[in-house]
């Protein structure tokens, strides 16, 4: 990654042009042709730096509810339980952490009823009873873009 890549990355994280030919507009800003710009962005996608280019929706505005769940899983079952939890499409994040509550996952569902039913289903399919729902009471920050180091 050279300086131009870094500048390009920082620019397209929060300010991707919403126009017919965005790479032409971006290229103009950095003194590149449309083709050069697209080639660089393609390189960043292929090397795995960029995961995707698109929107991040506010799930609440689309009528969805999200929930963080902390689970206490017997350590020898952690891998198996994690695999079952991850298999639900409504589970977006699923991490193990170094704590007695050792599995932390987030659910995004259409409404509270569906969310509660899904959680009961997950408890049943994993056999883990100790799952704590941790709804956000107040949101102080959700940041989705990062200045590169």
């Amino acid at each position, binding site marked *: 990654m050279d300086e131009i890549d870094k500048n390009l*990355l920082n620019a397209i994280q929060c300010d991707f042009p919403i126009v*017919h030919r965005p790479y032409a507009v971006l290229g103009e800003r950095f003194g590149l042709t449309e083709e050069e710009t697209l080639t660089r962005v393609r390189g960043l996608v292929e090397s795995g730096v960029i995961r*995707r280019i698109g929107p991040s929706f506010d799930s609440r505005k689309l009528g969805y509810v999200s929930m963080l769940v902390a689970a206490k899983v017997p350590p020898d079952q952690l891998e198996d339980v994690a695999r079952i939890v991850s298999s639900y*499409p409504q589970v*977006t994040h*699923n991490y193990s952490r170094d704590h007695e509550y050792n599995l932390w996952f987030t659910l995004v569902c259409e409404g509270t009823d569906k969310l509660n039913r899904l959680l009961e289903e997950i408890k049943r399919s994993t056999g883990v009873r100790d799952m704590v729902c*941790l709804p956000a009471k107040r949101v102080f920050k959700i940041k989705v873009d*990062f200045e590169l180091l």
Partner: protein
Amino acid sequence: MMTDKQVAIVRALQHGLPLCEEPFSEPAQIAGVDVDELLRQIELWKQDGTIRRFGAFLNHHRAGFKANAMGVWNVADDMVELFGRTAAQISAVSHCYERPRFEGFPYNVYTMIHGASRSECELVAKRISEATGVTDYKLLYTTTEFKKSSPTYFREENSPNLGDES
């Protein structure tokens, strides 16, 4: 409420744009709208906050953020607002929420901290602690990332699980 057309646009956009000169053409076609209408809807959604951000999403590991810690803080109830606002100002903190305490877990504020290393995360937490006077906190590090994906909205029945895994 969303119109059928808006639902179709969310479906067409949510997994990202194709990499080509005119990346909005294909999603417009899939959603059954013309490109100008699609661009207008995106701008409107950006303005009203339905779209938080439109752009490139990075793999933080590849971009130099090797460590991430979930900081959990035991903050006096009447201090939460001030604590939240202070932590939110720190650029290494990506998310900050108040959540309920639970049995055996007295922590009520969560901060996601990203850094190049664990010691960098620890330094950030120490700065938050010093700035707020809150000393009862823990950093819970990720041991395995089993899943990290974007949600799929308005999933069509019987459609396969197409979350963009990364």
